[in-house]
């Protein structure tokens, strides 16, 4: 799930050069990714993660590229973000550290974020 998240997170759809096809592909990738999280959640007692996943699917529906919403990209980003939160909740439930995509940034030739704050 972590690797799946990162493949989408660092995908071409979030770059300035993204084409309509890239965005459509990302939409389907996110949909498959969220369903994979859902399958894991069915066996876990993590109600907050389920709620996050529900919000992820709501955002995904709002980001359907076929609907030609001007905010489609933002909604897709939200869907991925809620999915990330659900993954982190699952990791927390297992006593594992949260997932940080930037730890794998070099594999994706991504630029480091200049500042990151955490509480």
């Amino acid at each position: 799930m972590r690797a799946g998240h990162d493949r989408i997170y660092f995908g071409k759809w979030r770059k300035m050069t993204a084409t309509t096809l890239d965005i459509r592909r990302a939409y389907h990738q996110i949909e498959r990714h969220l369903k994979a999280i859902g399958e894991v959640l069915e066996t876990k007692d993590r109600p907050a993660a389920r709620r996050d996943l529900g919000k992820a699917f709501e955002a995904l529906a709002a980001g359907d590229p076929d609907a030609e919403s001007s905010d489609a990209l933002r909604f897709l980003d939200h869907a991925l973000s809620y999915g990330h939160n659900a993954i982190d909740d699952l990791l927390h439930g297992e006593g594992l550290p949260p997932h940080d995509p930037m730890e794998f940034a070099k594999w994706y030739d991504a630029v480091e974020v200049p500042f990151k704050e955490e509480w």
Partner: protein
Amino acid sequence: MITLERYPREITLRDGARLTLRPMVREDADRLWDFFRRIPPEDTMYFREDVGRKKVVERWAENLEYDSVLPVLALEGDSVVGDATLHRNKSGWKQRVGTIRIQIAPDFRHRGLGTAMIREMRHLGEKAALHYLLAEAIEEQQSAIRAFEKMGFERVGLYLNFVNDQKGRFHNLVVLLYSMGDSGQATLSFPP
């Protein structure tokens, strides 16, 4: 209903630090007092009670009632490094509203413990069938506010010059709310 069988449980911070989460017990009074003594004065100024007085902490330890106030401690070894409390009303018009309060030791701030404690409180809130979790923060506590927002809390109120610190200066109070739906039960709802 919250079952506490899940405790004690271990969590791992992003930097690999392993901590134990468990409800506070009566014997924790000294540990908790040590923890509060490490909180800088600029933070304790916002506390509702004077935790610089050991009697205050001892009173909490002697009067533990998890159905009203469930304190969950984060421990590194034998030392308390975080304290999160879930406050509930057993009856009345706010019985579906839980209030959470979190304190983190200075050397554990900005390491993800605050976020982990919010996550733990969110789980307990769901298990307690609450409809809302409410958190309050002084507007200056921006990193805490952002952590709550990242966890799905929304700013629902800003009270200007609403609270005073222990030196008498007034501060804006931010109210954050996490909604768990009408039923209080999370459902897994997504397309087939």
